[in-house]
């Protein structure tokens, strides 16, 4: 049994690494994706293009604006003079947000009323919007604190070192500077592993059907079980190689923290592969040509990314859709990978998603194998 599996394994590797197109798909495409997410994903969080609509135009409003412009997060691109302009810059996505002071801001600050400032954000990218809101909150908080201190000094007449007040420092854990590359790069691992294992497995099996070698294998004494094992193992190994590659580039080049255990990362990847290789196997049973297989892979892959929480938080989705995501293996794998990288937590906390993946994987691979065996006969 082992000899037959080994023969297929060896043949598969020979074929994959002989094909220059295959080599670049396997090694280059993960690198390109890491680069894209590593560089592109860092830019949107600082120097956010912002417009100012200051109806008050007083020392107080300008002071606070200066606080905003001194932080590296906001960059003033436009100074607006009408509501139409405001609508326009947002609609045309010229800016991501508008800071608006109404008339009477200074009056309220000086008088003992609480003054209002509006931050209008483009909510299209809800992730970014909430992060920016956090920054704005910090800036305003600092301003308040200083204003309070000044007022106290005016009252007491001399410098006071501190005012007893609750200092809510919005400390973010795990990804302190909210650098989105830290958030996205580990996610890229899960995307690459999914796409590659689906694509490579289904195409490799369907190709044998297309060229007729599958028939030759069916006539040989090889069992479907041996065939499946020999066909899937190479792609599991390749997936692990890709995880290694992305991790190395992410950590050494983009300085992504890796706080958790690499062993756990590889182990959970293997468990996850049960599901994606199983789905790849399933796709191979419903496709007659490689083109059909590729279409089916993309048909599965796209919604699976959308419903994984990779780009849009699951919590922001409609309730019904949230339930649907429970059946998406990628969702769990994504949580595991991000947790290992950013939180550094171990199996003690992650056993639940790993177990879910294991059960899902076992189910999928069993059903696909049965279907595959039937499709051979």
């Amino acid at each position, binding site marked *: 049994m082992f000899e037959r599996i080994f023969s297929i394994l060896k043949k598969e590797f020979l074929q994959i690494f002989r094909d220059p197109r295959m080599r670049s798909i396997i090694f280059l495409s993960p690198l390109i994706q890491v680069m894209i997410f590593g560089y592109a994903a860092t830019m949107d969080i600082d120097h956010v293009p912002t417009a100012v609509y200051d109806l008050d135009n007083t020392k107080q409003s300008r002071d606070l604006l200066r606080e905003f412009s001194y932080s590296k997060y906001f960059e003033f691109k436009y100074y607006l003079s009408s509501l139409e302009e405001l609508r326009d810059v947002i609609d045309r996505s010229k800016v991501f947000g508008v800071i608006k002071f109404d008339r009477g801001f200074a009056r309220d600050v000086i008088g003992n009323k609480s003054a209002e400032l509006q931050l209008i954000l483009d909510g299209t990218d809800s992730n970014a919007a909430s992060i920016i809101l956090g920054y704005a909150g910090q800036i305003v908080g600092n301003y308040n604190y200083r204003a309070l201190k000044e007022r106290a000094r005016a009252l007491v007449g001399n410098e006071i070192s501190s005012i007893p007040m609750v200092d809510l420092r919005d400390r973010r854990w795990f990804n302190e500077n909210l650098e989105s590359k830290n958030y996205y790069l580990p996610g890229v691992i899960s995307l690459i592993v999914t796409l590659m294992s689906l694509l490579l497995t289904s195409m490799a099996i369907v190709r044998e059907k297309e060229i007729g*070698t599958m*028939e030759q294998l069916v006539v040989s004494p090889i069992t479907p079980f041996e065939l499946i094992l020999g066909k899937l193992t190479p792609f599991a190994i390749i997936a692990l190689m890709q995880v290694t590659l992305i991790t190395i580039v992410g950590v050494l080049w983009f300085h992504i923290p890796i706080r958790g255990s690499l062993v756990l990362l590889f182990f959970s990847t293997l468990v996850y592969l049960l599901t994606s290789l199983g789905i790849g196997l399933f796709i191979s049973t419903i496709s007659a040509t490689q083109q059909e297989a590729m279409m089916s892979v993309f048909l599965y892959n796209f919604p699976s990314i959308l419903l994984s929480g990779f780009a849009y938080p699951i919590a922001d989705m409609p309730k019904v859709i949230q339930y649907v995501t429970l059946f998406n293996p990628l969702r769990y794998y994504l949580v595991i990978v991000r947790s290992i990288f950013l939180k550094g937590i171990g199996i003690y906390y992650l056993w639940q998603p790993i177990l879910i993946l294991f059960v899902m994987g076992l189910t999928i691979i069993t059903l696909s194998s049965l279907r595959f065996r039937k499709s051979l*006969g």
Partner: protein
Amino acid sequence: MPENNTVAVTSLEKKFGNFTAVNRINFEVSGGEIFGFLGPNGAGKSTTIRMLCGIISPTSGSGKVGGFDIIKEQGKIKQNIGYMSQRFSLYDDLTVEENIDFYSGIYRVPKDEKQARKEKIIGLAGLEAFRHRLTSTLSGGWKQRLALGCAIIHKPKIIFLDEPTSGVDPITRNNFWAIIKDMARNGITVFVTTHYMDEAENCGRMALIYKGSIIAMGTPEEMKTKIMKNTVLDIRVAKGEDWLDKIETLKGVEEAALFGVSIHAVVKDERAAIDAIKDIFKRSGLKDYKVTKIKATLEDVFVSLIEDYDKEHDESKKS
């Protein structure tokens, strides 16, 4: 076991939907025999082979290959048979040696024999110069030889060859048949399909399959004598092509075709036909002609058998 290299089927049938590809056929192949399975395109040759090798299951009927049931004991059959499919089915992106190694691994050829068998196959197929070449760069004939080699790497007792010589030049074809005969001499049963009728002479016995039914079976000699009810006449005449139409439409002439410098006519009643042919020549004042009875080639036999079959079935449809 006496029957470990025989093939036998009874009432074997395969339907694809409403279409009957193989229609309740019966035949037996004894050990060490070269059995030819002949028929035009779409006759059901590949379908039959695919049922015997366990690739598809029959709709009804039964069969035994190497003494094992083709429905219940497919697993046991597999180790004992070799199969060369009609489509070239090796890995184009592997080299000659890698292909051989792959199949020798799949069939678990014993370790200490691997190298020797590989060399033997490379020698048999004459592939010495190409052993490290990618299979995709081989020409058609070499690919077929490699495919045959890979199909016998595990020393099967029975080998199924589905049109092994299609798209192959005449010299390679002869070479192929030499290998096939050699295998039969060593006790291997060969089940081979072809639609090259001249190749059928190499078979010990053969069956003619047409539209899913076996319409004749026997040795080449039997086919040409007992089974062939018609006579073939060789007509030598100048400008044969001008006479062809006239002869073909004569009563009693089943079929006529140009054959090099002469016309071959298949006729039912030898005497009557010769008289009729001579008659038209005489009437147009021609003296220089010759009509002789010749021995039918297998091709003549098959063509007239198929025509007879078609006529019979057309009539039965009409009535």
